[in-house]
């Protein structure tokens, strides 16, 4: 059994930690205080790693021992319910991999790229502070709570600890997040693939490849995962390489050259069909491919950054901290904290930490390594994404990430506008980068994925292949992001469908039968329509869609993190550990302040670029004056813009209402816990515990 106490007291140990602290301080100084010169990305990596080591060694240990009071002698659900299937005591390194693979997704790759418009420093500071004091604390505490409650889900725990109404609010919150998440991730794929036959061909090929793998592993050579994955990867790379030929042949290229609207409809149709097919046919094999590719690519990127040590070309802080940035609107507070969602704190992780992981934990004392440690790793992925975006020429970054409504649609116009912002770039440079990566144009390729792909291509081609390989690396990066986003679209549609069936089923009981094919078809159609609406709205939005949808996604994700942390706080009070409750109260308060401020600004801000309602008013005023405002070209389009604005405003208002309601329930829970001398939370597995019936 592993004791928590790791090598205390030795002089050597003390010197080692002092050394790490000093190294971290020096690198941080270089990262933060540098003005005007470019610095090596290595400093950013070293600063981040030092912060992680120190936080893991000291803060996470403090939380485990003092705040949560983990008990290495206590039996975990993995032993109590051991069935060698769901509940399996699992080696902690193996479980770490499982947990990290489950929490890692597209979020930490996109958010930091968008945040780079303010320079690398604000993003870095929040990714590091956020993960240490909020994200990792949430993941670890929820994992701990769920482990002590037989691996129950977040929704279950909110219901039993805070009451049925709070539980229902949390569930509706999860459903809304799912909608926005699917829409925004699908939008990232659309933005990456539009007008790109190479990328589109390779991504389309993943469908027959996955189906072949699915049939292979289900019927031909059952369960031979290694074989199946090897075949899949080879076919995938072949389609990636052949994609170049496709893009160079005008006739073939025309078959895979789509506008954004068409791609959106294709993805919506795909989401519907994929979610009603049996899981083994498409979802599972694609999930396997994307999981392995994701882990492999992240490792490759880490090696690339360490090996190439590229310079950060973006200034540490840009003028756009005043809120006038082209990539997304709004000032540093609160919008930076909303934009970098997943690399710093992600509410979604609370669903994973209360999912399969607690059922496999060997010992409570491993919540630190698995909960806190995996989130630190995820944060490192975010740091790498930030590096990927900031090693580009700032001019290239802004040309790629600014909407066409601002920089126009030709390289000459774009170069002029972006140079005017103070990031000098020539039309030739823009065309050169596009040509290097094998694309016709890189103007307004918003959504983060193409930017990261160019960044990754420039880092990885510095390691292998040089400029000749840029195109392959770029499309490899696009393929890898699209692959796991489309897996999420499929899986997420199933989750949303189930939740819709569950909710509607409480009114019409027959709708609850998930084995009914017609129920599933109807449920999937509703789920797809819901996220498809936001996706399509985003695609036709001349401001690029990401501008509107990403903040909504960020707000919803932080809102869920807020809910999870409120639960953690309430339970700490119920455990009579209120002395240490500041550990979860501080991040809770910060997240609530950020989401509420951002939510209010999105609804009520008088700046049309930020506030949905004032944007709608601007269009209604113009409409009643008989004018047509760009980007709309007709009266119908004007009306559609207005309707979309009100839908978005309503959604933001719902998020605000959910957060406020949960905060009130949290206070009530804390008040009740303070009113009694006893421990009022029900845990499982304590040998000395006296059963306390009647206490929820």
């Amino acid at each position, binding site marked *: 059994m592993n004791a928590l106490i790791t090598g205390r007291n030795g002089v050597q140990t003390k010197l080692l930690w002092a050394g790490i602290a000093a190294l971290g301080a020096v690198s941080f100084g270089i990262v933060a205080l540098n003005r005007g010169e470019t610095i090596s990305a290595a400093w950013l990596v070293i600063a981040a790693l030092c912060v992680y080591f120190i936080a893991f060694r000291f803060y996470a240990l403090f939380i485990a021992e003092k705040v949560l009071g983990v008990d290495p002698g206590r039996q975990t659900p993995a032993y109590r319910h*051991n*069935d*060698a*299937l*769901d509940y*399996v005591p*699992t*080696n902690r*390194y*193996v*479980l770490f*991999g*499982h947990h990290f*693979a*489950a*929490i*890692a*997704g*597209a*979020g930490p790759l996109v958010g930091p790229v968008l945040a780079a418009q303010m320079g690398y420093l604000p993003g870095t500071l929040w990714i590091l502070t956020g993960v240490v004091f909020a994200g990792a604390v949430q993941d670890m505490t929820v994992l701990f709570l769920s482990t002590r409650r037989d691996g129950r*889900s977040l929704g279950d725990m909110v219901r039993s600890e805070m009451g049925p109404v709070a539980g229902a609010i949390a569930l509706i919150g999860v459903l809304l997040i799912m909608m926005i*998440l699917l829409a925004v*991730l699908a939008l990232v794929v659309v933005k990456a693939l539009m007008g790109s036959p190479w990328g589109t061909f390779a991504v389309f090929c993943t469908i027959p490849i996955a189906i072949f793998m699915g049939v292979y*592993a*289900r019927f031909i050579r*059952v*369960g031979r*995962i290694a074989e199946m994955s090897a075949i899949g990867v080879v076919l995938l790379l072949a389609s990636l390489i052949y994609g170049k030929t496709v893009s160079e042949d005008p006739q073939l290229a025309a078959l895979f050259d789509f506008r954004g609207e068409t791609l959106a409809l294709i993805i919506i149709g795909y989401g519907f069909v994929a979610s009603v097919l049996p*899981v*083994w046919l498409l*979802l*599972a094999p694609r*999930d*396997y491919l994307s*999981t*392995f590719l994701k*882990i492999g690519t992240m490792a490759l990127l880490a090696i690339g950054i360490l090996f190439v040590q590229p310079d950060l070309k973006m200034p540490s802080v840009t003028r756009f901290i005043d809120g006038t940035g082209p990539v997304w609107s709004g000032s540093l507070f609160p919008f930076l904290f909303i934009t970098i*969602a*997943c690399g710093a704190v*992600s509410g*979604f*992780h609370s*669903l*994973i930490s209360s*999912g*399969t992981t607690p059922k*496999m934990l060997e010992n409570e004392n491993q919540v630190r390594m698995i909960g806190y440690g995996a989130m630190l790793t995820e944060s490192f992925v975010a740091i790498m994404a930030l590096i990927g975006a900031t090693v580009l020429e700032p001019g290239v970054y802004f040309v790629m990430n600014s909407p066409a409504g601002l920089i126009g649609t030709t390289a000459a116009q774009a170069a002029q506008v972006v140079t005017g912002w103070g990031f000098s770039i020539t039309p030739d440079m823009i065309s050169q980068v596009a040509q290097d990566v094998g694309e016709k144009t890189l103007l307004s390729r918003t959504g983060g994925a193409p930017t990261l792909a160019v960044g990754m291509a420039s880092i990885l081609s510095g390691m292998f292949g040089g400029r000749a390989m840029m195109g392959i690396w770029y499309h490899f990066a696009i393929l890898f992001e699209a692959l796991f986003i489309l*897996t*999420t679209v*499929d*899986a*997420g549609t*199933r*989750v949303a*469908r*189930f939740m819709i069936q569950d909710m509607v089923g409480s009114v019409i009981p027959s709708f609850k039968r*998930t084995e009914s094919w017609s129920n599933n078809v109807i449920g999937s159609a509703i789920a797809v329509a819901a996220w498809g609406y936001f996706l399509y709205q985003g695609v036709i939005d001349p401001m690029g869609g990401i501008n509107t949808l990403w903040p909504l996604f960020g707000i919803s*994700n932080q809102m869920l993190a807020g809910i999870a942390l409120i639960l953690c706080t309430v339970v700490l009070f119920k455990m009579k550990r209120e002395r240490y409750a500041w550990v979860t109260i501080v991040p809770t308060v910060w997240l609530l302040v950020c989401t509420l401020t951002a939510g209010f600004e999105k609804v009520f801000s008088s700046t049309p670029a930020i506030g949905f309602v004032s944007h709608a008013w601007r269009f209604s005023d113009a409409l009643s004056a008989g004018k047509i405002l760009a980007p709309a070209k007709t009266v119908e389009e004007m009306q559609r813009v207005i309707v979309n604005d009100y839908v978005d405003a309503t959604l933001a208002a719902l998020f605000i209402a959910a957060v406020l309601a949960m905060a009130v329930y949290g206070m009530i829970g804390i008040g009740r816990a303070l009113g009694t001398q006893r421990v009022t939370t029900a845990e499982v597995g304590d040998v000395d515990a006296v059963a306390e019936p009647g206490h929820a």
Partner: protein
Amino acid sequence: MPDLRTLGAWAVQTARLMIGIPDYQVYLEHRQTFHPDEPIMTYEEFFRERQDARYAVARGRLRGCC
């Protein structure tokens, strides 16, 4: 310090658990030890069961993170 073979076994187990397939040997030993009279799934059945279970939303398996 674990030897290379152990590390290799961990790597394989990790890769398999990442996609939701736990160790079959562990399952086999568990069933033989604790439920010797009950039927034991073959590896093929075990694989299919775990593959379906990974995406069984109704049983609380939520997939798709961000």
